């Protein structure tokens, strides 16, 4: 599996081992930076907001006693497993009706409500320690406090693992910016790599190396957490 990585390293020294692709990319293609920061921005915002929404929702799904809970869960499960192309069309129509096409919000909002985070958090919360929640409820009646001090504190590992997965997925999204955005300056790095031949010089390989780095860093930091997160 790792040879792929080394080839990434190898292949950007092209044209007789020169730095030309790198200088072309770093100094000659200012739009690259815009798209890089766009990617980072989208990924960060989506991760934070999605966690803010998915954690309470999963908590509610686990603890609340309510009719139709199973149905909600099933809907989310099916939504999560749907191919992206299928969910994109409803998303597009929803965004179009609200006039959010070609804005940053148009990318962020549908991703926040993706089912992935909710389902994963729900699976983790199944083996949450209920006694602790009960104990905390005696002290406070605020759900928010219980959530922050008990639930989040207990599930740090899982939340980090989920966050990294969401980050990786958002960093890698291609279809949404391609279809929802028209303005080049709002698009992200995946689109840049897709259209790398439009730019001058061999910018493709250096761009994909830079594209790898943030996720790779996260992976190296959290690889054990990630493994635990999947196994649970």
């Amino acid at each position, binding site marked *: 599996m790792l040879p792929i990585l080394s080839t990434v390293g190898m292949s950007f020294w092209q044209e007789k081992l020169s730095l030309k692709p790198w200088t072309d990319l770093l100094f000659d293609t200012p739009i690259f930076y815009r798209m890089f920061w766009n990617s980072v921005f989208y990924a960060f915002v989506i991760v934070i907001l999605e966690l803010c929404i998915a954690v309470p929702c999963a908590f509610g799904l686990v*603890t609340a006693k309510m009719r139709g809970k199973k149905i909600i869960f099933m809907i989310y499960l099916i939504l999560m497993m749907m191919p*992206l192309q299928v969910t994109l069309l*409803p998303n597009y129509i*929803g965004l179009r009706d609200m006039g959010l096409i070609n804005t940053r919000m148009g990318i962020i909002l549908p991703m926040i409500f993706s089912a992935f985070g909710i389902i994963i958090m729900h699976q983790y919360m199944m083996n949450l320690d209920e006694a602790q929640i009960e104990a905390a409820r005696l002290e406070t009646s605020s759900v928010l406090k219980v959530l922050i001090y008990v639930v989040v504190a207990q599930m740090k590992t899982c939340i980090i693992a989920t966050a990294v997965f969401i980050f*990786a997925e958002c960093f890698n999204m291609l279809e949404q910016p391609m279809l929802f955005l028209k303005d080049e300056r709002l698009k992200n790095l995946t689109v840049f790599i897709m259209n790398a031949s439009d730019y001058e010089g061999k910018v493709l390989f250096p761009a*994909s190396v830079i594209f790898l780095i943030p996720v790779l860093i996260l992976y190296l930091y959290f690889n054990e957490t*990630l493994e635990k997160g999947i196994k649970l």
Partner: protein
Amino acid sequence: MNKKRGKMRLSWNRKCCICMLPAIMGTLIFSLIPFFRVLYYSMINNQFEKSFALISNYRRVLENEYFRIAFKNSIMLILICVPILVVLAIVISLILVFGKMKQKGIQISFILPMVIPTASIAVIWRQFFSDIENIFPVYLLFIWKNIGICIILLTAVFASVDKEIFEAAYMEGAGPMKIHLHMTLPISAPTIFFTVLLSIVNSFRIFKESYLYYGTNYPPDYGYTLQYYMNNHFLKLNYQNLSVSAVFNTLFAGMIIAVGLIFIRRFQR
């Protein structure tokens, strides 16, 4: 006084329900309600006349040559790739768990392909397989990307299998192949089934990788899947065709998911 306060406050249960509200609202606004509009679009002939044309719409799409090619290729992907992927994952995880290797590091390295942005990898792939003219590189890319999660799920189950029953079987003179075929696999059947389902679902999602690999909206015929079909109609904003194929896709995927989930339930009992 006390009574009033009690009324003002919501019960704990209510609050828990309120927790779910933002997520559900979002899903409703962005997925479910628009989905009904998709259904509606698939039934009318165009946005201006709005007359009922369900049957002709569906017939037009289903008789389309490209739609058929796309559908065939999607099925092929599931039929060829998923078994290879799952068998490979089972073999590797058996070796990892029961072989005498240091498994920790290897296991962790299998997560890497899951998180690595595929855009960069597809680029390398294109460089490697530039002169191969069949679907094989995309299949390989798919297996490469998805084998990690399968292995991690399977090793976790295999490692939890009780070792004592093996020893009993070993005493009776069964070979390792036989033991695993007749004991390990049946015990971990639900998880194996889950990995199969997961792989099928992921095979619907291979579009991005294949798109980046081919770098075009119109790949060669063997690489043209349902997702391409939808994407191309998306770019043309042909709502009718798009809606029909979305509904069709939903039914197709929904069927597989439903069957899979029911099977898993059965196994667990």
